Protein backbone atom coordinates (compact mmCIF):
# COMPACT_ATOMS: atom_id res chain seq x y z
CA UNK A 1 0.00 0.00 0.00
CA UNK A 2 2.88 2.35 0.86
CA UNK A 3 4.47 1.52 -2.48
CA UNK A 4 1.22 2.29 -4.24
CA UNK A 5 0.89 5.67 -2.58
CA UNK A 6 4.49 6.48 -3.46
CA UNK A 7 3.83 5.59 -7.10
CA UNK A 8 0.64 7.63 -7.18
CA UNK A 9 2.52 10.48 -5.59
CA UNK A 10 5.11 10.23 -8.33
CA UNK A 11 2.40 10.39 -10.99
CA UNK A 12 0.88 13.43 -9.32
CA UNK A 13 4.29 15.15 -9.18
CA UNK A 14 4.92 14.35 -12.82
CA UNK A 15 1.58 15.87 -13.76
CA UNK A 16 2.08 18.89 -11.55
CA UNK A 17 5.54 19.67 -12.83
CA UNK A 18 4.51 19.89 -16.47
CA UNK A 19 1.28 21.88 -16.52
CA UNK A 20 1.97 23.32 -19.95
CA UNK A 21 1.97 19.88 -21.60
CA UNK A 22 -0.67 18.39 -19.32
CA UNK A 23 -1.75 15.04 -20.73
CA UNK A 24 -5.39 14.10 -20.23
CA UNK A 25 -4.38 10.57 -19.19
CA UNK A 26 -1.29 8.86 -17.83
CA UNK A 27 -1.01 5.41 -16.29
CA UNK A 28 1.45 2.65 -15.56
CA UNK A 29 1.60 -0.94 -14.32
CA UNK A 30 3.19 -2.18 -11.14
CA UNK A 31 5.21 -4.49 -13.37
CA UNK A 32 5.80 -4.80 -17.10
CA UNK A 33 7.31 -8.23 -16.79
CA UNK A 34 5.47 -11.07 -15.10
CA UNK A 35 7.93 -13.87 -14.47
CA UNK A 36 6.55 -17.39 -14.38
CA UNK A 37 9.12 -19.05 -12.13
CA UNK A 38 9.08 -22.63 -10.85
CA UNK A 39 7.09 -21.59 -7.81
CA UNK A 40 4.63 -19.39 -9.73
CA UNK A 41 1.08 -19.62 -8.43
CA UNK A 42 -0.47 -16.51 -9.93
CA UNK A 43 0.08 -12.88 -9.06
CA UNK A 44 -1.65 -9.54 -8.87
CA UNK A 45 -1.06 -6.69 -11.25
CA UNK A 46 -1.69 -3.12 -10.16
CA UNK A 47 -2.63 -0.56 -12.78
CA UNK A 48 -2.67 3.06 -11.65
CA UNK A 49 -2.78 6.50 -13.23
CA UNK A 50 -4.23 9.97 -13.30
CA UNK A 51 -6.73 11.79 -15.48
CA UNK A 52 -7.03 15.43 -16.39
CA UNK A 53 -10.54 16.65 -15.68
CA UNK A 54 -13.77 14.75 -15.30
CA UNK A 55 -14.49 11.39 -16.89
CA UNK A 56 -14.78 7.67 -16.45
CA UNK A 57 -12.00 5.18 -16.92
CA UNK A 58 -12.16 1.84 -18.72
CA UNK A 59 -9.19 -0.53 -18.47
CA UNK A 60 -8.65 -3.58 -20.65
CA UNK A 61 -5.85 -6.16 -20.48
CA UNK A 62 -5.47 -8.42 -23.50
CA UNK A 63 -3.17 -11.41 -23.86
CA UNK A 64 -1.39 -12.62 -27.02
CA UNK A 65 -3.67 -13.48 -29.93
CA UNK A 66 -3.95 -17.12 -30.95
CA UNK A 67 -5.94 -19.21 -33.36
CA UNK A 68 -8.28 -21.36 -31.32
CA UNK A 69 -10.30 -24.35 -32.45
CA UNK A 70 -13.75 -24.77 -30.95
CA UNK A 71 -15.35 -28.20 -31.19
CA UNK A 72 -18.94 -29.21 -30.65
CA UNK A 73 -19.98 -32.64 -29.42
CA UNK A 74 -23.09 -34.44 -30.51
CA UNK A 75 -24.48 -37.82 -29.66
CA UNK A 76 -23.47 -40.57 -32.06
CA UNK A 77 -24.71 -44.07 -31.21
CA UNK A 78 -25.17 -43.07 -27.57
CA UNK A 79 -21.68 -41.60 -27.18
CA UNK A 80 -20.75 -37.92 -27.14
CA UNK A 81 -18.28 -37.25 -29.94
CA UNK A 82 -16.65 -34.09 -31.33
CA UNK A 83 -18.44 -33.73 -34.64
CA UNK A 84 -18.10 -30.09 -35.71
CA UNK A 85 -15.24 -27.63 -35.47
CA UNK A 86 -14.67 -23.93 -36.09
CA UNK A 87 -11.30 -22.16 -35.88
CA UNK A 88 -11.36 -18.56 -34.65
CA UNK A 89 -8.41 -16.30 -35.45
CA UNK A 90 -7.26 -13.42 -33.24
CA UNK A 91 -8.54 -14.90 -29.99
CA UNK A 92 -6.82 -13.23 -27.01
CA UNK A 93 -5.33 -15.87 -24.73
CA UNK A 94 -6.31 -13.73 -21.75
CA UNK A 95 -8.81 -10.89 -21.27
CA UNK A 96 -9.89 -8.66 -18.43
CA UNK A 97 -11.87 -5.44 -18.36
CA UNK A 98 -12.42 -3.00 -15.51
CA UNK A 99 -14.31 0.29 -15.29
CA UNK A 100 -15.09 3.03 -12.81
CA UNK A 101 -18.87 2.60 -13.31
CA UNK A 102 -21.08 -0.05 -15.02
CA UNK A 103 -20.02 -0.18 -18.68
CA UNK A 104 -23.47 0.50 -20.14
CA UNK A 105 -23.67 3.74 -18.14
CA UNK A 106 -20.28 4.95 -19.38
CA UNK A 107 -19.99 4.01 -23.00
CA UNK A 108 -22.46 3.48 -25.87
CA UNK A 109 -22.35 0.10 -27.66
CA UNK A 110 -20.51 1.53 -30.69
CA UNK A 111 -17.65 2.77 -28.51
CA UNK A 112 -17.42 -0.52 -26.67
CA UNK A 113 -17.33 -2.43 -29.93
CA UNK A 114 -14.65 -0.16 -31.41
CA UNK A 115 -12.32 -0.57 -28.42
CA UNK A 116 -13.13 -4.24 -27.74
CA UNK A 117 -14.57 -3.48 -24.33
CA UNK A 118 -16.38 -6.50 -22.89
CA UNK A 119 -16.30 -10.16 -23.96
CA UNK A 120 -19.13 -9.65 -26.48
CA UNK A 121 -16.96 -7.14 -28.35
CA UNK A 122 -13.81 -9.21 -28.74
CA UNK A 123 -12.91 -9.30 -32.40
CA UNK A 124 -12.47 -13.00 -32.92
CA UNK A 125 -12.80 -13.86 -36.58
CA UNK A 126 -14.42 -17.12 -37.66
CA UNK A 127 -13.32 -18.67 -40.97
CA UNK A 128 -14.79 -17.05 -44.08
CA UNK A 129 -16.66 -20.20 -45.08
CA UNK A 130 -18.25 -20.75 -41.64
CA UNK A 131 -22.04 -21.11 -41.72
CA UNK A 132 -23.25 -17.76 -40.32
CA UNK A 133 -26.07 -19.35 -38.35
CA UNK A 134 -23.61 -21.47 -36.39
CA UNK A 135 -21.08 -18.77 -35.47
CA UNK A 136 -22.87 -17.33 -32.39
CA UNK A 137 -23.16 -20.74 -30.71
CA UNK A 138 -19.48 -21.55 -31.31
CA UNK A 139 -18.44 -18.08 -30.18
CA UNK A 140 -20.44 -18.43 -26.98
CA UNK A 141 -18.92 -21.86 -26.43
CA UNK A 142 -15.44 -20.41 -26.81
CA UNK A 143 -16.13 -17.60 -24.33
CA UNK A 144 -17.66 -20.06 -21.84
CA UNK A 145 -14.63 -22.37 -22.01
CA UNK A 146 -12.13 -19.55 -21.63
CA UNK A 147 -14.08 -18.20 -18.67
CA UNK A 148 -14.24 -21.63 -17.03
CA UNK A 149 -10.44 -21.81 -17.24
CA UNK A 150 -10.12 -18.37 -15.64
CA UNK A 151 -8.67 -16.83 -18.81
CA UNK A 152 -11.64 -14.53 -19.40
CA UNK A 153 -13.92 -12.77 -16.95
CA UNK A 154 -17.38 -11.65 -18.00
CA UNK A 155 -17.86 -9.42 -14.94
CA UNK A 156 -15.88 -6.16 -15.29
CA UNK A 157 -13.48 -5.36 -12.45
CA UNK A 158 -13.63 -2.11 -10.51
CA UNK A 159 -11.54 0.93 -11.26
CA UNK A 160 -11.53 3.04 -8.09
CA UNK A 161 -10.77 6.74 -7.91
CA UNK A 162 -8.72 8.23 -5.09
CA UNK A 163 -9.94 11.77 -5.18
CA UNK A 164 -11.03 13.33 -8.47
CA UNK A 165 -7.96 12.46 -10.58
CA UNK A 166 -6.06 9.43 -9.36
CA UNK A 167 -7.34 5.98 -10.27
CA UNK A 168 -6.22 2.43 -9.81
CA UNK A 169 -7.36 -1.15 -10.38
CA UNK A 170 -6.05 -4.59 -9.61
CA UNK A 171 -5.97 -7.48 -12.07
CA UNK A 172 -5.48 -10.98 -10.71
CA UNK A 173 -3.30 -13.06 -13.00
CA UNK A 174 -4.07 -16.73 -12.30
CA UNK A 175 -1.46 -19.52 -12.17
CA UNK A 176 -2.37 -20.58 -15.71
CA UNK A 177 -1.87 -17.11 -17.22
CA UNK A 178 -0.61 -17.78 -20.77
CA UNK A 179 2.90 -16.52 -21.57
CA UNK A 180 3.27 -13.88 -24.29
CA UNK A 181 2.94 -10.19 -25.11
CA UNK A 182 0.04 -8.41 -23.40
CA UNK A 183 -1.44 -4.97 -23.94
CA UNK A 184 -2.99 -2.88 -21.20
CA UNK A 185 -5.22 -0.12 -22.53
CA UNK A 186 -6.90 2.71 -20.65
CA UNK A 187 -9.72 4.86 -22.05
CA UNK A 188 -10.85 8.14 -20.56
CA UNK A 189 -14.51 8.52 -21.45
CA UNK A 190 -16.63 11.65 -21.01
CA UNK A 191 -20.23 11.98 -22.20
CA UNK A 192 -19.97 8.77 -24.18
CA UNK A 193 -16.87 9.99 -26.03
CA UNK A 194 -13.30 8.78 -25.76
CA UNK A 195 -11.30 11.82 -24.61
CA UNK A 196 -7.99 10.03 -24.39
CA UNK A 197 -6.59 6.53 -24.86
CA UNK A 198 -3.27 5.11 -23.72
CA UNK A 199 -1.74 1.68 -24.11
CA UNK A 200 1.30 0.02 -22.64
CA UNK A 201 2.86 -3.41 -23.21
CA UNK A 202 3.33 -6.10 -20.63
CA UNK A 203 5.19 -9.36 -20.96
CA UNK A 204 4.35 -12.66 -19.29
CA UNK A 205 7.38 -14.86 -19.58
CA UNK A 206 8.71 -18.10 -18.20
CA UNK A 207 11.89 -17.45 -16.27
CA UNK A 208 14.40 -19.77 -14.64
CA UNK A 209 14.36 -23.56 -14.55
CA UNK A 210 10.85 -23.89 -16.02
CA UNK A 211 11.76 -21.73 -19.00
CA UNK A 212 15.01 -23.59 -19.54
CA UNK A 213 13.25 -26.94 -19.50
CA UNK A 214 10.62 -25.69 -21.94
CA UNK A 215 13.21 -24.23 -24.32
CA UNK A 216 15.35 -27.33 -24.16
CA UNK A 217 12.38 -29.64 -24.79
CA UNK A 218 11.49 -27.69 -27.92
CA UNK A 219 14.94 -26.88 -29.30
CA UNK A 220 16.67 -30.19 -28.63
CA UNK A 221 13.70 -32.53 -28.60
CA UNK A 222 15.71 -35.71 -29.28
CA UNK A 223 18.27 -34.97 -26.58
CA UNK A 224 15.49 -34.07 -24.16
CA UNK A 225 13.83 -37.43 -24.86
CA UNK A 226 17.06 -39.33 -24.19
CA UNK A 227 17.74 -37.36 -21.00
CA UNK A 228 14.18 -38.00 -19.85
CA UNK A 229 14.71 -41.75 -20.19
CA UNK A 230 18.11 -41.61 -18.44
CA UNK A 231 16.67 -39.62 -15.55
CA UNK A 232 13.77 -42.04 -15.22
CA UNK A 233 16.02 -45.12 -15.29
CA UNK A 234 18.46 -43.57 -12.80
CA UNK A 235 15.76 -42.63 -10.34
CA UNK A 236 14.14 -46.05 -10.61
CA UNK A 237 17.48 -47.78 -10.11
CA UNK A 238 18.41 -45.44 -7.26
CA UNK A 239 15.18 -46.23 -5.46
CA UNK A 240 15.75 -49.94 -5.94
CA UNK A 241 19.26 -49.74 -4.45
CA UNK A 242 18.07 -47.59 -1.56
CA UNK A 243 15.30 -50.02 -0.68
CA UNK A 244 17.54 -53.06 -0.97
CA UNK A 245 19.83 -51.70 1.72
CA UNK A 246 17.00 -50.59 3.94
Amino acid at each position, binding site marked *: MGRLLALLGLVATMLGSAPARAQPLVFDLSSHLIA*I*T*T*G*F*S*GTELLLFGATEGEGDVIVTLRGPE*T*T*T*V*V*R*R*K*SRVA*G*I*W*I*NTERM*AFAGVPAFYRVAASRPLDQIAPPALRARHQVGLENLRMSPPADAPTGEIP*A*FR*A*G*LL*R*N*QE*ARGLYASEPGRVSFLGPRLFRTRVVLP*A*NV*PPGAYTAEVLLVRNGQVIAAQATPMLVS*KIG*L*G*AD*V*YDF*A*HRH*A*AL*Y*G*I*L*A*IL*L*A*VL*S*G*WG*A*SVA*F*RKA
Partner: protein
Amino acid sequence: MQVYLPIAEMSVDVFLILGLGGGVGLLSGLFGVGGGFLMTPLLIFIGVPPAVAVGSEAAQIVASSVSGVLAHTRRGNVDFRMGSVLLAGGIVGSTAGVQLFAFLRSIGQVDLVVALSYVVMLGIVGTLMLQESVRTLIRHRRTGAANRGKLHQHNFLHGLPLKMRFPKSKLYISSLLPLSVGMFVGLLSALMGVGGGFIMVPAMIYLLGMPTSVVVGTSLFQIVFVTANVTFLQAYQNQTVDMVLALLLVVGGVIGAQIGARVGAKLRGEQLRGLMALMVLSVALKLAWDLVSTPEDLFSVGRMEGGH
Protein backbone atom coordinates in the same frame (compact mmCIF):
# COMPACT_ATOMS: atom_id res chain seq x y z
CA MET B 1 3.40 -25.90 -2.02
CA GLN B 2 2.85 -25.03 -5.67
CA VAL B 3 5.19 -25.93 -8.50
CA TYR B 4 4.96 -24.80 -12.12
CA LEU B 5 5.00 -27.57 -14.73
CA PRO B 6 6.91 -26.12 -17.70
CA ILE B 7 5.51 -28.36 -20.47
CA ALA B 8 1.96 -28.71 -19.15
CA GLU B 9 2.06 -24.91 -18.55
CA MET B 10 0.18 -25.09 -15.29
CA SER B 11 0.80 -24.84 -11.58
CA VAL B 12 0.06 -27.80 -9.32
CA ASP B 13 0.37 -28.74 -5.66
CA VAL B 14 3.58 -30.75 -5.13
CA PHE B 15 2.00 -32.95 -2.46
CA LEU B 16 -1.00 -33.78 -4.62
CA ILE B 17 1.31 -35.10 -7.34
CA LEU B 18 3.55 -36.93 -4.84
CA GLY B 19 0.46 -38.50 -3.27
CA LEU B 20 -0.89 -39.62 -6.63
CA GLY B 21 2.50 -41.10 -7.50
CA GLY B 22 2.73 -42.92 -4.16
CA GLY B 23 -0.79 -44.33 -4.23
CA VAL B 24 -0.59 -45.55 -7.79
CA GLY B 25 2.98 -46.82 -7.19
CA LEU B 26 1.72 -48.97 -4.33
CA LEU B 27 -0.84 -50.62 -6.59
CA SER B 28 1.81 -50.97 -9.27
CA GLY B 29 4.10 -52.93 -6.95
CA LEU B 30 1.20 -54.98 -5.66
CA PHE B 31 -0.20 -56.06 -9.00
CA GLY B 32 2.81 -55.81 -11.31
CA VAL B 33 1.09 -53.28 -13.53
CA GLY B 34 2.55 -49.92 -14.48
CA GLY B 35 -0.36 -48.14 -12.88
CA GLY B 36 -0.67 -45.89 -15.92
CA PHE B 37 -4.27 -46.92 -16.50
CA LEU B 38 -5.10 -45.16 -13.23
CA MET B 39 -2.54 -42.36 -13.35
CA THR B 40 -3.24 -41.06 -16.86
CA PRO B 41 -6.99 -40.53 -16.24
CA LEU B 42 -6.19 -39.01 -12.82
CA LEU B 43 -3.73 -36.54 -14.35
CA ILE B 44 -6.26 -35.55 -17.00
CA PHE B 45 -8.83 -35.17 -14.23
CA ILE B 46 -6.69 -32.64 -12.33
CA GLY B 47 -6.31 -30.57 -15.49
CA VAL B 48 -3.12 -31.81 -17.18
CA PRO B 49 -3.63 -31.74 -20.97
CA PRO B 50 -4.23 -35.34 -22.20
CA ALA B 51 -1.20 -35.28 -24.52
CA VAL B 52 1.13 -34.19 -21.69
CA ALA B 53 -0.43 -36.72 -19.30
CA VAL B 54 0.24 -39.56 -21.75
CA GLY B 55 3.81 -38.43 -22.52
CA SER B 56 4.89 -37.75 -18.94
CA GLU B 57 3.24 -40.87 -17.59
CA ALA B 58 5.34 -42.93 -20.02
CA ALA B 59 8.50 -41.50 -18.41
CA GLN B 60 7.17 -42.26 -14.95
CA ILE B 61 6.38 -45.86 -15.91
CA VAL B 62 9.98 -46.29 -17.11
CA ALA B 63 11.24 -45.37 -13.65
CA SER B 64 8.77 -47.39 -11.62
CA SER B 65 9.22 -50.42 -13.87
CA VAL B 66 13.02 -50.24 -13.61
CA SER B 67 12.90 -50.49 -9.83
CA GLY B 68 10.27 -53.21 -10.12
CA VAL B 69 12.12 -55.28 -12.69
CA LEU B 70 15.35 -55.12 -10.67
CA ALA B 71 13.54 -56.51 -7.64
CA HIS B 72 12.06 -59.32 -9.75
CA THR B 73 15.37 -60.12 -11.48
CA ARG B 74 17.00 -60.66 -8.09
CA ARG B 75 14.31 -63.20 -7.31
CA GLY B 76 14.79 -64.84 -10.73
CA ASN B 77 11.27 -64.02 -11.87
CA VAL B 78 12.11 -62.70 -15.35
CA ASP B 79 11.96 -64.78 -18.56
CA PHE B 80 14.37 -62.69 -20.66
CA ARG B 81 13.88 -64.79 -23.80
CA MET B 82 10.11 -64.33 -23.75
CA GLY B 83 10.55 -60.69 -22.71
CA SER B 84 12.75 -59.97 -25.73
CA VAL B 85 10.23 -61.41 -28.20
CA LEU B 86 7.42 -59.42 -26.57
CA LEU B 87 9.66 -56.36 -26.67
CA ALA B 88 10.39 -56.68 -30.40
CA GLY B 89 6.65 -56.52 -31.05
CA GLY B 90 6.26 -53.75 -28.49
CA ILE B 91 8.74 -51.43 -30.19
CA VAL B 92 6.92 -51.76 -33.53
CA GLY B 93 3.51 -51.29 -31.92
CA SER B 94 4.44 -48.29 -29.78
CA THR B 95 6.16 -46.49 -32.66
CA ALA B 96 3.01 -46.86 -34.75
CA GLY B 97 0.96 -45.78 -31.73
CA VAL B 98 2.79 -42.47 -31.32
CA GLN B 99 2.13 -41.65 -35.00
CA LEU B 100 -1.53 -42.55 -34.59
CA PHE B 101 -1.71 -40.39 -31.46
CA ALA B 102 -0.30 -37.35 -33.30
CA PHE B 103 -2.81 -37.88 -36.12
CA LEU B 104 -5.80 -38.23 -33.78
CA ARG B 105 -4.69 -35.11 -31.95
CA SER B 106 -4.68 -33.15 -35.19
CA ILE B 107 -8.29 -34.13 -35.99
CA GLY B 108 -9.50 -33.55 -32.41
CA GLN B 109 -10.51 -37.14 -31.66
CA VAL B 110 -7.71 -38.16 -29.31
CA ASP B 111 -9.80 -37.83 -26.13
CA LEU B 112 -12.53 -40.00 -27.59
CA VAL B 113 -10.21 -42.74 -28.84
CA VAL B 114 -8.28 -42.75 -25.55
CA ALA B 115 -11.49 -43.02 -23.52
CA LEU B 116 -12.96 -45.70 -25.80
CA SER B 117 -9.74 -47.74 -25.65
CA TYR B 118 -9.84 -47.56 -21.88
CA VAL B 119 -13.48 -48.65 -21.65
CA VAL B 120 -13.09 -51.58 -24.05
CA MET B 121 -9.72 -52.81 -22.79
CA LEU B 122 -10.37 -52.40 -19.08
CA GLY B 123 -13.90 -53.79 -19.46
CA ILE B 124 -12.78 -56.99 -21.18
CA VAL B 125 -9.71 -57.57 -19.02
CA GLY B 126 -11.51 -56.77 -15.78
CA THR B 127 -14.39 -59.12 -16.54
CA LEU B 128 -12.10 -62.00 -17.54
CA MET B 129 -9.93 -61.61 -14.46
CA LEU B 130 -12.85 -61.33 -12.08
CA GLN B 131 -14.43 -64.47 -13.56
CA GLU B 132 -11.21 -66.43 -13.27
CA SER B 133 -10.35 -65.39 -9.75
CA VAL B 134 -13.87 -66.02 -8.45
CA ARG B 135 -13.87 -69.45 -10.09
CA THR B 136 -10.48 -70.29 -8.57
CA LEU B 137 -11.53 -69.10 -5.14
CA ILE B 138 -14.67 -71.25 -5.27
CA ARG B 139 -12.68 -74.27 -6.44
CA HIS B 140 -10.17 -73.77 -3.65
CA ARG B 141 -12.95 -73.74 -1.16
CA ARG B 142 -14.42 -76.98 -2.46
CA THR B 143 -11.36 -79.16 -2.99
CA GLY B 144 -8.76 -77.46 -0.86
CA ALA B 145 -6.33 -77.26 -3.78
CA ALA B 146 -6.58 -77.06 -7.54
CA ASN B 147 -5.12 -80.05 -9.34
CA ARG B 148 -4.78 -79.66 -13.08
CA GLY B 149 -3.50 -82.43 -15.30
CA LYS B 150 -1.90 -80.16 -17.90
CA LEU B 151 0.01 -76.95 -17.48
CA HIS B 152 -2.37 -75.26 -19.91
CA GLN B 153 -5.00 -76.04 -22.53
CA HIS B 154 -3.88 -76.62 -26.11
CA ASN B 155 -5.77 -74.89 -28.93
CA PHE B 156 -5.27 -73.67 -32.52
CA LEU B 157 -2.76 -71.06 -31.34
CA HIS B 158 -0.29 -73.85 -30.73
CA GLY B 159 -0.37 -74.87 -34.39
CA LEU B 160 1.22 -71.62 -35.63
CA PRO B 161 4.69 -71.74 -37.28
CA LEU B 162 8.06 -70.32 -36.06
CA LYS B 163 7.98 -72.23 -32.81
CA MET B 164 10.42 -71.24 -30.10
CA ARG B 165 11.42 -72.81 -26.82
CA PHE B 166 11.05 -70.73 -23.63
CA PRO B 167 12.67 -72.90 -20.94
CA LYS B 168 12.07 -70.49 -18.11
CA SER B 169 8.34 -70.40 -18.86
CA LYS B 170 8.29 -74.15 -19.71
CA LEU B 171 6.72 -73.32 -23.07
CA TYR B 172 7.21 -74.37 -26.69
CA ILE B 173 5.03 -72.03 -28.72
CA SER B 174 5.03 -70.01 -31.94
CA SER B 175 7.02 -66.79 -31.57
CA LEU B 176 4.30 -65.04 -33.60
CA LEU B 177 2.08 -65.25 -30.55
CA PRO B 178 4.19 -63.22 -28.10
CA LEU B 179 5.26 -60.99 -31.00
CA SER B 180 1.68 -59.93 -31.78
CA VAL B 181 0.77 -59.63 -28.10
CA GLY B 182 3.76 -57.28 -27.70
CA MET B 183 2.77 -55.29 -30.76
CA PHE B 184 -0.80 -54.83 -29.62
CA VAL B 185 0.18 -53.82 -26.10
CA GLY B 186 2.83 -51.44 -27.50
CA LEU B 187 0.17 -49.70 -29.58
CA LEU B 188 -2.06 -49.28 -26.54
CA SER B 189 0.91 -48.12 -24.50
CA ALA B 190 1.51 -45.17 -26.81
CA LEU B 191 -2.16 -44.38 -27.26
CA MET B 192 -3.32 -44.66 -23.67
CA GLY B 193 -0.23 -43.58 -21.71
CA VAL B 194 0.00 -46.92 -19.95
CA GLY B 195 2.67 -49.57 -19.54
CA GLY B 196 0.10 -52.10 -20.67
CA GLY B 197 0.68 -54.50 -17.78
CA PHE B 198 -3.05 -54.82 -17.23
CA ILE B 199 -3.34 -56.36 -20.72
CA MET B 200 0.08 -58.01 -20.82
CA VAL B 201 -0.28 -59.92 -17.54
CA PRO B 202 -3.62 -61.58 -18.40
CA ALA B 203 -2.45 -62.20 -21.99
CA MET B 204 0.64 -63.99 -20.66
CA ILE B 205 -1.37 -66.12 -18.27
CA TYR B 206 -4.41 -66.97 -20.38
CA LEU B 207 -3.14 -66.65 -23.96
CA LEU B 208 0.51 -67.68 -23.77
CA GLY B 209 0.05 -69.97 -20.78
CA MET B 210 3.07 -68.70 -18.86
CA PRO B 211 3.51 -69.68 -15.19
CA THR B 212 2.24 -66.95 -12.87
CA SER B 213 5.59 -66.69 -11.06
CA VAL B 214 7.46 -65.17 -14.03
CA VAL B 215 4.57 -63.17 -15.49
CA VAL B 216 4.95 -59.96 -13.47
CA GLY B 217 8.74 -59.71 -13.80
CA THR B 218 8.73 -60.45 -17.53
CA SER B 219 5.92 -57.98 -18.14
CA LEU B 220 7.84 -55.26 -16.27
CA PHE B 221 11.00 -56.09 -18.23
CA GLN B 222 9.43 -55.38 -21.59
CA ILE B 223 7.40 -52.44 -20.25
CA VAL B 224 10.66 -50.63 -19.33
CA PHE B 225 11.82 -50.66 -22.94
CA VAL B 226 8.47 -50.04 -24.62
CA THR B 227 7.66 -47.04 -22.43
CA ALA B 228 11.22 -45.73 -22.91
CA ASN B 229 10.50 -45.82 -26.64
CA VAL B 230 7.19 -44.01 -26.11
CA THR B 231 8.88 -41.41 -23.89
CA PHE B 232 11.50 -40.68 -26.51
CA LEU B 233 9.04 -40.45 -29.40
CA GLN B 234 6.53 -38.29 -27.49
CA ALA B 235 9.35 -35.95 -26.45
CA TYR B 236 10.91 -35.89 -29.90
CA GLN B 237 7.77 -35.57 -32.04
CA ASN B 238 5.17 -33.91 -29.85
CA GLN B 239 7.18 -32.22 -27.05
CA THR B 240 4.67 -33.52 -24.52
CA VAL B 241 6.95 -35.04 -21.87
CA ASP B 242 6.96 -32.88 -18.74
CA MET B 243 10.01 -33.98 -16.77
CA VAL B 244 9.11 -31.92 -13.69
CA LEU B 245 5.76 -33.71 -13.54
CA ALA B 246 7.32 -37.10 -14.31
CA LEU B 247 10.03 -36.77 -11.64
CA LEU B 248 7.48 -35.80 -8.99
CA LEU B 249 5.42 -38.86 -9.92
CA VAL B 250 8.59 -40.99 -9.86
CA VAL B 251 9.55 -39.93 -6.35
CA GLY B 252 6.13 -40.88 -5.02
CA GLY B 253 5.86 -43.88 -7.31
CA VAL B 254 9.10 -45.74 -6.58
CA ILE B 255 8.50 -45.59 -2.84
CA GLY B 256 4.95 -46.85 -3.26
CA ALA B 257 6.04 -49.61 -5.64
CA GLN B 258 8.66 -51.00 -3.24
CA ILE B 259 6.15 -51.20 -0.43
CA GLY B 260 3.59 -52.75 -2.80
CA ALA B 261 6.01 -55.45 -3.95
CA ARG B 262 6.62 -56.53 -0.34
CA VAL B 263 2.95 -56.58 0.60
CA GLY B 264 2.13 -58.41 -2.66
CA ALA B 265 4.53 -61.25 -1.86
CA LYS B 266 2.46 -62.08 1.22
CA LEU B 267 -0.93 -62.14 -0.52
CA ARG B 268 -2.48 -65.01 -2.49
CA GLY B 269 -2.54 -64.78 -6.30
CA GLU B 270 -6.30 -65.19 -6.75
CA GLN B 271 -7.05 -62.54 -4.16
CA LEU B 272 -4.67 -60.15 -5.85
CA ARG B 273 -6.23 -60.79 -9.23
CA GLY B 274 -9.71 -60.40 -7.83
CA LEU B 275 -8.81 -57.05 -6.26
CA MET B 276 -7.18 -55.82 -9.44
CA ALA B 277 -10.17 -56.97 -11.51
CA LEU B 278 -12.53 -54.91 -9.36
CA MET B 279 -10.32 -51.86 -9.67
CA VAL B 280 -9.98 -52.22 -13.43
CA LEU B 281 -13.75 -52.60 -13.80
CA SER B 282 -14.54 -49.52 -11.72
CA VAL B 283 -12.23 -47.35 -13.84
CA ALA B 284 -13.89 -48.73 -16.99
CA LEU B 285 -17.38 -48.00 -15.65
CA LYS B 286 -16.46 -44.44 -14.69
CA LEU B 287 -15.04 -43.74 -18.15
CA ALA B 288 -18.01 -45.36 -19.89
CA TRP B 289 -20.36 -43.20 -17.85
CA ASP B 290 -18.44 -40.07 -18.90
CA LEU B 291 -18.85 -41.04 -22.55
CA VAL B 292 -22.61 -41.57 -22.49
CA SER B 293 -23.76 -38.94 -19.98
CA THR B 294 -24.49 -35.51 -21.39
CA PRO B 295 -21.36 -33.33 -20.97
CA GLU B 296 -21.57 -30.09 -19.00
CA ASP B 297 -20.57 -28.11 -22.06
CA LEU B 298 -20.96 -29.46 -25.57
CA PHE B 299 -18.23 -27.09 -26.74
CA SER B 300 -14.54 -27.49 -26.03
CA VAL B 301 -11.50 -25.52 -27.14
CA GLY B 302 -8.01 -26.45 -28.21
CA ARG B 303 -5.07 -24.33 -29.22
CA MET B 304 -4.23 -24.67 -32.89
CA GLU B 305 -1.19 -26.86 -33.55
CA GLY B 306 1.97 -24.78 -33.74
CA GLY B 307 0.15 -21.82 -32.23
CA HIS B 308 3.00 -21.08 -29.86
